[in-house]
């Protein structure tokens, strides 16, 4: 990276960009605007994120969403903010929707049929609602008879669940599966003990 002075100014520019756009801005776009390569830009963004988070005088921070960045308020400002700001309308996600959403999140890209197979029930309504809430979207078509729609999660999903990227989702791993199994065994054991 260039000299300190230079970087400071560039970070100022990035701040201005993220502030102005409001919405998430792709790394590529930011890099282009400040006329630096993406790697350097990313480093600066992460430096800024750390700086914002560490600084108590800052009420805003930056979040990373896949390969985009967006400015937002810090979580602890929430109580104060709802006194002045209109709270964006949030949709209440029922358990059914959450269940369906978790399947889409972990198995994406996924067809409605696959979702239904896992849940054991028709899922049109749930999928449609998630699409309506902009948490799930069509990401393509499966190369199979009828070319069924493949669903995936949206950037709004990442934002809403405070997830930076899909990899960051709480993982389902083999251990977990075994844990479930162990749990079940314990329960069975318990039953015998009783």
């Amino acid at each position, binding site marked *: 990276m260039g000299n300190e002075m230079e970087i400071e100014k560039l970070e100022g520019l990035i701040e201005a960009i993220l502030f*102005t756009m*409001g919405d998430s801005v792709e790394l590529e776009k930011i890099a282009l605007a400040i006329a630096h390569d993406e790697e350097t830009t990313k480093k600066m963004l992460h430096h800024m994120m750390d700086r914002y988070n560490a600084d108590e005088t800052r009420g805003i921070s930056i979040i990373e969403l896949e390969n985009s960045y967006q400015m937002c308020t810090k979580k602890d*400002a929430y109580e104060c903010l709802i006194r002045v700001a209109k709270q964006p309308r949030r949709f209440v996600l029922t358990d059914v929707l959450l269940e369906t*959403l*978790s399947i889409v999140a972990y198995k994406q890209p996924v067809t409605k049929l696959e979702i239904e197979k*896992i849940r054991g029930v028709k899922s049109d309504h749930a999928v449609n609602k998630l699409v309506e809430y902009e948490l799930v979207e069509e990401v393509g078509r499966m190369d199979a008879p009828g070319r069924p729609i493949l669903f995936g999660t949206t950037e709004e999903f990442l934002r809403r*669940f405070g997830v930076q990227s899909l990899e960051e989702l709480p993982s389902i791993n083999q251990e*977990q599966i075994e844990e*479930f199994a162990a749990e079940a065994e314990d329960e069975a054991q318990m*039953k015998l003990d009783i």
Partner: protein
Amino acid sequence: MGISVKLQVFEGPLDLLLHLIDKNKIDIYDIPIVEITNQYMEYIRAMEKEDLNVMSEFLLMAATLLDIKCKMLLPKEVNEEGEEEDPRAELVEQLLQYKMYKYMAYELKDRQLDGERMLFKSATLPKEVLEYCEPVDMDVLLGDLTLSKLNAIFEDVMRRQEDKVDRVRSKFGRIEKEEVTLPEKMDYVEQYAESHKQFSFRQLLQEQKSKLHVIVTFLAVLEMMKTGILQIEQEDTFGEILITSMVA
């Protein structure tokens, strides 16, 4: 048993099964099929007033359970490796998977609460940025345009305008209506076709004295093509149009 009240809670047959397994504190890998199936059927019976769509999903699972129950009574099947196959294996797999996603849904629910506490803002472009108009790059815009090219274009435009005026007839000062009827022209084309057998459309048009004749000739050809007297071929776009007489 007061089951019906609780029925609404279950999202589907898997949900119900998981509930039964939990309630009975059963090992998911060793489901006492007979007992569970009986309990499951009890729920189903209490559900009779449910709508058919929902019902059918529960009934499908009931059928699966009964199928497994039957297989459990029969001698165990052995797979290629000589291991005994558990008829419950597939169901267990499905239940485990479902249970996992249910668990992940709870995880997501927690995260949602977190995400909700962040507020964003809409775009606020400064007026100067909004109103900014990219300067026209004359080099790109004009490219290799030269003055003589522009002149050629202009002359072309003027010539085209000129073409719109029939220079000969506009000098007459009065337009005499020429009488060329379609039947007359069709007779003419038919004779022409008989003597030439095959000819190009252009060739035929060259014989025409005026615009009106050209137009009526064109209409005549169209009509005769429709009635099958002429056959028309054109190999490629803007290529020569070949007319063949179909009259023996």
